[in-house]
């Protein structure tokens, strides 16, 4: 009681600033010894898990019902919805294994952060619609007692997709599908375009679609931290380690038509601790593969793809790392505050960043000029050769821009059809996927998390039917292809 009034009273006052108290600390505990002693006593008293031999608090628990490989936005979203949708509260124990707690190479935080409903596949539109509803009401979903509300800095400026003559018919079709699902998109002719956005050069543009509501960009780091905080408050355990092995048992079973299949189930996950040879076997009932760009490697660990090619056993998870560059430039004469997220027919895109005439943008390279995904080094020549010319052609003001900085991030690129993989694997029956979204994973993460949680808890998709996104499409060959995607 006294400590709290001291904190409240002195935080603002000169005494508080002078002593350099950090949030949660008190004057009486300056060098941290008190809290150390308290922690020691608490660990010995019954009620804590005390190992008399050595400290094992950095190790994951020895068993967990669900192990989620990957702690990015998709993994945390699955964890959140699992804890939210479980029927008796606190029934399922969830463990999130994340290799890098600084998220230095994770796709989530290196993302440009846009969200749009302008897809051609109806399920994608539904996913984005639910996600924007989640983001708009984020403080109702992710509220944690005593913590400040989240501000994801959502800029509802909309997306502007430009189409040339050839793409105009497809764009019209897409807009029809989007409107059917409930997105608010309007089609603009070049003249309307010039009226609304005078800084655009409409040469070569036959049609444009502009999202009027629920589209824009937000801060992915804030969403990640909000999810992390909420998920920890719901009782999900975090572990810093790398999954190195899956121990599974398999059963030879016969299908209804009499053919034999070998069904595997993973019953142990070996989590290796960073910079050490130590690993902890975690006994589990369900594994969720949300490892993003590295999902292909995790799937290989589980034995997915070990078999003669052309069979279901031999079908690998076609998710691989692809490097993409994002450049930040400054252009004082550039387009103003109303600038939407513009996507050029050539594949170049840009958006406004902040209020100081800064813009973010980039371009998807073609298959031939794919950069080497070994590291996250930025190639500035790419900007000069491939991004700037179409940009300057589309927005003449961008002829005099100055690049401030750039970074590179990975796409969890699905080489099959560039759309996500969701749901269980047909042969490794307790591995669920939530990966492969090839650049639009962040914007669909809340909805995908809910879909996977429904699949795990109920056995089928309840709200959004993602059965066309199941793994089996890689074997049967049914592509779910987007038309016009970056």
């Amino acid at each position, binding site marked *: 009681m006294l400590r709290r009034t001291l904190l409240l009273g002195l935080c603002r006052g000169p005494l508080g600033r002078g002593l350099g108290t950090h949030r949660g600390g008190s004057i009486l505990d300056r060098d941290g010894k008190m809290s150390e002693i308290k922690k020691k006593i608490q660990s010995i008293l*019954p*009620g*804590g*898990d*005390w*190992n*008399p031999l050595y400290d*094992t608090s950095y190790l994951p*628990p*020895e*068993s967990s*019902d669900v192990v989620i490989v990957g702690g990015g936005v998709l993994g945390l979203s699955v964890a959140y919805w699992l804890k939210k949708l*479980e*029927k*008796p509260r*606190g*029934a*399922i*124990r969830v463990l999130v294994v994340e290799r890098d707690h600084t998220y230095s190479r994770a796709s989530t935080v290196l993302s440009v952060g846009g969200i749009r409903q302008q897809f051609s596949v109806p399920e994608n539109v539904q996913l984005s619609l639910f996600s924007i509803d989640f983001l708009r009401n984020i403080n109702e979903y992710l509220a944690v007692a005593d913590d400040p509300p989240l501000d994801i800095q959502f800029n509802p400026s909309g997306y502007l997709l430009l189409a040339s003559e050839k793409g105009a018919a497809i764009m019209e079709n897409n807009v029809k599908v989007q409107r059917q699902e409930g997105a608010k998109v309007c089609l603009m002719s070049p003249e309307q375009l010039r009226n609304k956005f005078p800084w655009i050069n409409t040469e070569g543009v036959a049609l444009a679609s502009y999202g009027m509501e629920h589209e824009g960009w937000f801060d992915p780091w804030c969403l990640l931290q909000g999810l992390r905080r909420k998920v920890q408050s719901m009782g999900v355990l975090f572990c810093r380690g790398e999954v190195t092995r899956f121990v599974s048992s*398999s*059963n030879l*079973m016969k299908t209804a038509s009499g053919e034999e299949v070998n*069904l*595997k*189930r993973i*019953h*142990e996950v070996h989590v290796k601790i960073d910079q050490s040879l130590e690993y902890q076997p975690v*006994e*589990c*009932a*369900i594994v969720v593969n949300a490892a993003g760009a590295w999902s292909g490697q995790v799937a290989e660990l589980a034995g997915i793809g070990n078999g003669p090619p052309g069979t279901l056993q031999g079908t690998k998870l076609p998710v691989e790392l692809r490097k993409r560059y994002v450049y930040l430039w400054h252009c004082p004469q550039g387009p103003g505050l109303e600038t939407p997220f513009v996507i050029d027919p050539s594949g170049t895109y840009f958006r406004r960043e902040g209020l100081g005439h800064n813009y973010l943008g980039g371009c998807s390279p073609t298959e031939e000029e794919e950069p080497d995904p070994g590291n996250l080094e930025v190639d500035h020549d790419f900007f000069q050769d491939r991004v700037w010319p179409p940009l300057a052609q589309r927005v003449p003001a961008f002829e005099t821009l100055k690049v401030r900085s750039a970074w590179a991030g990975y796409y969890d690129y699905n080489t099959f059809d560039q759309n996500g993989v969701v749901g*269980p694997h047909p042969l490794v*029956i*307790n591995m669920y996927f939530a990966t492969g979204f090839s650049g639009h994973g962040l914007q669909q993460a809340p909805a995908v998390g809910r879909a996977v949680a429904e*699949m*795990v*808890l109920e*056995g089928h998709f309840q709200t959004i039917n993602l059965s066309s996104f199941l793994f089996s499409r890689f074997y049967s060959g049914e592509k779910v292809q987007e038309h016009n995607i970056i």
Partner: protein
Amino acid sequence: MLKIIIPTAMLMPMTWLSKPNMIWINSTAYSLLISLISLSHLNQLGDNSLNFSLLFFSDSLSAPLLVLTTWLLPLMLVASQSHLSKETLTRKKLYITMLILLQLLLIMTFTATELIMFYILFEATLIPTLIIITRWGNQTERLNAGLYFLFYTLMGSLPLLVALLYIQHTLGTLNFLIIQYWAKPISTTWSNIFLWLACMMAFMVKMPLYGLHLWLPKAHVEAPIAGSMVLAAVLLKLGGYGMMRITILLNPTTNQMAYPFMMLSLWGMVMTSSICLRQTDLKSLIAYSSVSHMALVIVAVLIQTPWSYMGATALMIAHGLTSSMLFCLANSNYERVHSRTMILARGLQTILPLMAAWWLLASLANLALPPTINLIGELFVVMASFSWSNMTIILMGTNIIITALYSLYMLITTQRGKYTHHIKNINPSFTRENTLMALHMLPLLLLSLNPKIVLGPIY
């Protein structure tokens, strides 16, 4: 009596000297033979007891418990085969030795004549159980569970030692056969109240009584299957047995002193049953249901009427078999799905129909379906407590309803409904598992044909 004790003791060298592929077969077969020998104890002469020596005797109260103990060892060995298959040979032999040692100590406890010997063996049973829980348990929390188990029981039973020594000093003997006749009524003074408390607390903790039951869910959940089985089936009954023996010395103080414990038991019965309805962990649900059933036994022993003693004895045997069977069923689930959460393994009836039949029988026995001895026990206790005080019928009735509710909840959640996607390839039921369930169910069903064996000395 030596015809049971010596073979049980010799099971240990037999385990160590067996060939590696014969340890399970040898130990299971011979322990089954020993249990068949112990069946002869059930042939009790009327009112009196069978006295084998100065040290051992068995009467109609301890004979069923003795048979239950010896019957349980082969069942424990059959149940442990799967989870020990990956251990080294020495560890396996060590585990079996612990179980045999525990069995030996329990046999001697139930047949001890002298109360001090009973006490020593009562404490000694803690050691193998602690070793089984902390060494072979599943999670890191097992260390915590072992600590709780050990210290709760020790704290409760230390005063018992003092009390027994005092009684030995005043009465002159602690031989059970003699104190039956020499017990004098004790007045209700403060020191006698403390004497009463000292005698009873050890058994209250063991039963467990509602306020002192914290060790039970922990110990049951963290213990391996054999540990859970022996804990639920036999170790809890040590408390009941001890209470029934020692209350002979404590009249008429029991009439006053029993009130707080009666209240705790009656209330705790309903409370722990309600907790069962909210449990998500299968083993935890069965553990709390054990507390609930044992609370009935405490009520029965404290009332001290003929019918309540009959009900308590029947309930102890019935609960031992039923609870042990439920733990075996939960373990068969756990070995397949590697998770104890109920909602993650649903709809098992479509995949494992024979196991569903055993689940059904066990759940029906748990909710005291006629004509099982579970019903006989519960009914006798309810009737006796009604005659003690009419108001208890409300709580007892509530408890019976809630017991039915959670037993059926457990059955429906695990067996009915659509199965989840990730349990499609679980192994079908092994013959070993079906044998295990059959060996649990068979005595239970046969006893419903002839329940007078388990109705205790008053019958």
